[in-house]
Structures are given as C-alpha cells and as structure tokens.
C-alpha cells in the first residue's frame, strides 16, 4: 500500500512507519494521521508483523500539526475540534487498540500532536539531541491527541501542568529522567539501540505482549479488584498460546526460547 505523507515497510517481523515530510519536520498535513492509522491497522492484521516502529525522515520526528495548513481560515475561525474528531483521535484510538507492541524512535524534535504520537507508543527511545515540547499554549491552544491523558500518567500532575502551561522544551535526557520515555541514547547510537529493541520485540511472544499493553492501559482506570480479574483473563489467553508452551520448555531445558508470536 502506498501513502502520500508516510512510508510503511515490513521486514523481518518489523513494520517501519516513517513520517515523510522532512522539509516540514514531518508536521502533520491533511489526513496524514489517517495514513498512520491505516498503516498500523494493516500491520496489525499482517501475521508476519510482530512489532510496529514509528520514526521521522530527516532531522525531525514530528513537529505537530502543520500550522500553514491548519491555522484560522481567512473567512472565519476554523473548527479546531473537527480535525481531531476525523483524523487525530481515530489514529490515537487505533494505537491504543493495536495488539502488537509499538515503538517510537524519536530521531529529532517531537512537538505538539507529534509528541502525542510518541506518547501513545509503548516504548519511546530518543536521540539525546531530540527535544519534547507541548507547544500548544504558545499559540493559544490546549494539548490534544491524547496528550492530556498520557502525559500526567507518565510524568505526574506537576510536570504535566508545567509542560502544558509553559510550553517549553524538555530534553531527551530530562524526559528519560522523568520517566516520560524509556531511554535517551547518543545520536550515533539511536539506530543500533532501537534495532536491538525491535529485534527483541519482533522475536517475542506477540500475543502475550499485546495482552500486556492492554492490561497496563486498563490499569489506569481500574480498581485493583477489577485489574486482578483482567490479569486472570489475560493469563488464561496467554497460557493457551504455543509461545507459553515453548517458553516453559525452553526454561526447563535452560535454552533460549524460540517464540513464533502465536
């Protein structure tokens, strides 16, 4: 399948989605979020794909909505809510519902809704030169595309308020220190370190990994008692997979497990 604003390729169990507007720091244009949604859903339904990676072409990850194409129209104010409804929110929901692990490889500036895109992934690995920014308030808007849900859950209320009300830059090192992202690495190590994570996830027990991401998400809205039930139900499914049988026998035989993702 070919897209206008992104590239999507499948290789060695990894689906790589590359935001491809490098001249605009990969800012979202038009229906670009729906292209990302389509690529994620295609990868989810492809049994060969066991992990999905999102990164940016060129020197940026994603600068957020492209203001040249989303600012107020000359003939009156644009409805800033409708594009969320039709494009951004469906993308974020598709990420939430995906049953395969998702990795954001943040190669450069990550701002506004581009930051929401990264936050909605499971593992965020960033080059140390990358910066994160809730730029919305700098133009009189509010954080969107899920930022106000993910951010306080990753860095707490005080830091979420600080980023959202001040709109300043947070370095990749700070982001890792705050627990906003999984890891910050030297720029020249980003490729190797992210490949190692993708290789590990692509050879992992995919069904179990999908259940894990669902359970962690659900835990934020559940009482402990409900979460215990969800864990029981998830374990029932995971415990019935071929990968669980393989995991147990590999453990008993003291060898590396060879998971097939089913």
């Amino acid at each position, binding site marked *: 399948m070919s897209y206008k604003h992104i590239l999507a390729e499948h290789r060695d169990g990894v689906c790589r989605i590359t935001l491809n507007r490098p001249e605009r720091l990969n800012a979202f244009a038009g229906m670009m979020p729906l292209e990302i949604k389509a690529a994620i859903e295609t990868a989810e339904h492809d049994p060969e794909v066991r992990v999905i990676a999102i990164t940016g072409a060129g020197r940026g990850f994603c600068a957020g909505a492209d*203001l040249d194409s989303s600012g107020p129209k000359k003939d009156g104010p644009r409805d800033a809510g409708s594009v969320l409804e039709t494009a951004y929110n469906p993308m*974020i929901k598709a990420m939430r519902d995906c049953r395969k692990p998702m990795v954001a490889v943040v190669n450069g500036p990550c701002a506004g809704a581009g930051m929401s895109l990264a936050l909605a992934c499971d593992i965020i690995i960033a080059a140390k030169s990358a910066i994160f920014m809730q730029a919305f308030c700098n133009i*009189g808007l509010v954080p969107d595309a899920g930022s*106000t*849900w993910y951010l306080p859950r990753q860095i*707490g209320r005080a830091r979420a308020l600080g980023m959202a009300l001040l709109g300043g830059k947070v370095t990749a090192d700070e982001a890792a220190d705050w627990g906003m992202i999984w890891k910050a690495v030297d720029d020249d190590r980003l490729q190797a370190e992210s490949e190692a994570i993708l290789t590990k996830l692509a050879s992992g027990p995919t069904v179990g990994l999908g259940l894990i991401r669902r359970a962690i998400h659900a835990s934020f809205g559940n009482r402990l008692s409900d979460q215990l039930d969800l864990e029981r139900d998830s374990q029932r499914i995971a415990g019935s997979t071929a990968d669980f049988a393989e995991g147990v026998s590999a453990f008993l035989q003291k060898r590396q497990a060879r998971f097939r993702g089913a």
Partner: protein
Amino acid sequence: MSDEPLLVDVREGVAWLTMNRPKVLNGLDSALTRALWHAFESVEEDPAVRAVVLTGNGRAFNAGADISLLQKLATSGERPGEVVARAMDAEFNPMMRALGAIRKPVIARVNGPAAGGGASLALACDIVVAARSAYFQLTFGPNLGIVPDIGGSWLFPRGGSRARALGLSLTAERLSAPDAAACGLIWSCVADDLLDAEVGKLAKRFASGPTLAYGLIKELLDESATNSLDHQLRLERDFQRAAGSSADFAEGVAAFLGKRQPVFKGR
C-alpha cells in the same frame, strides 16, 4: 505591615496573595481560611487578574491547621471528629474548591515549610516553585493520628508514584524541596535568593499569556485523572474547538507564521 491574615495585592495582571500569620507559621485558622476562600473567588472573577501567586510571610509557607483549632477541639466537649468534619465542610474544603476553580495559572511560591494542610495547599496550585530550604511534610497520620486532607490524599499520588505517596503519608518524613523537584512532585526548586526572580518571571509570563487556553488546560488535566482515554479525547476535541475560536489562537498563529512574539489578550 498590616495584620490582616491574608494580604492581597493586584498589580500588572498578577494577584499576589500572601498568607500573613508569620508568628504561627501561617497556620490555617478560620479567619485565614475564609480570607483565602474569598480571595480565590475574587481573583477568579476579576478580569484584570491573569495570574495568581500564593505565598507565605515569614519563614514558613504554611504549617497546616492552626494550633488554636486543635486547642478548641480539646475543650469543645463534642466528639473531635465531628468538629473537624464540620470545619472541613464549612471552610477548608470550600476554600480548596475555590482554589481549584480558578481558571488562571496559580503559582505556589513556597518560601519555607509546607506541612499538613499547607502541603496540600501548595500542591493544589498549578506551578509549585520552592526555595531550596523549604520542605514538604504530611504530618497528619504519624504525628496526629488523622488522615491527609484538604486534597493531600488526591494530590500526592498524582506526583506520579504510589510508593512515594504512601511513604510520605505513613512516615511523615520531610521531603526536601530539591527531592520534591527531582521526583516530580513540584515543578522546580531554586536557591532561596533566586525565588523572587524566578516566581516574578513566571508570573509575568502567565499574565501576558493566553488566559482562556490556560484555564482549559488546567481543567483538562484535572479531568484526565479519572477519565478513560476515549472520554479524554472527546474532551480535548471540545476544548480545542473553544480554544481554536479564541482571539488568542488567531494571534498565536499569525505570530508564528510572522516569526514574531505573540501579543495575547487573554481571550
């Protein structure tokens, strides 16, 4: 200096609220609590105010419930728990709800210890800037046999760590300002002699910012705590619709495209 329990000074878009009972570490008695409640409502209603700073006079930010309240409990003849609960309904909780209802950025200038209800009061503000010598302490349980209140049991776990909230509540150990900043319970900690400069800079910035959007951002993050992702996405859509119709958004975009600083009017 006036002996009012709360000093209120509005200038250049910023309302400076200074708790003024320095001899008792700004302990919350009925008069101070009611003065705060009234001031929070006033600054919310006053269109000239676009940012609020809450701070304490003297060496403390706020040491929590005033000792006079505790003495009253001992001599009232009523069940103390009843008296406490009544005071919370009548004064403390309405004061905290009024603070939460301010749709403008509120900065806590934590000049010294914030203990008990004083810690809750600080954390309920949007941006907490603490002097390095300050500390936070949940004195309720271990020292008095009561539970964290006026929002403490809600605010502390939202610093991002259940383990830390439990530790602070059950041990009443002091959390130094640098540690509070390092663990994300507060926004920042600065050297004591830089506190005024830092708070002044933030207040000035907020007073010239997109006030309408600030209010919406605050409400979004408060609602986020208990919302599902689906619900929150809908809320963001609705709030973005409102923010996107503001004069400040038009100005923000024009400034961005014109590569200049925006001049926000706050609406």
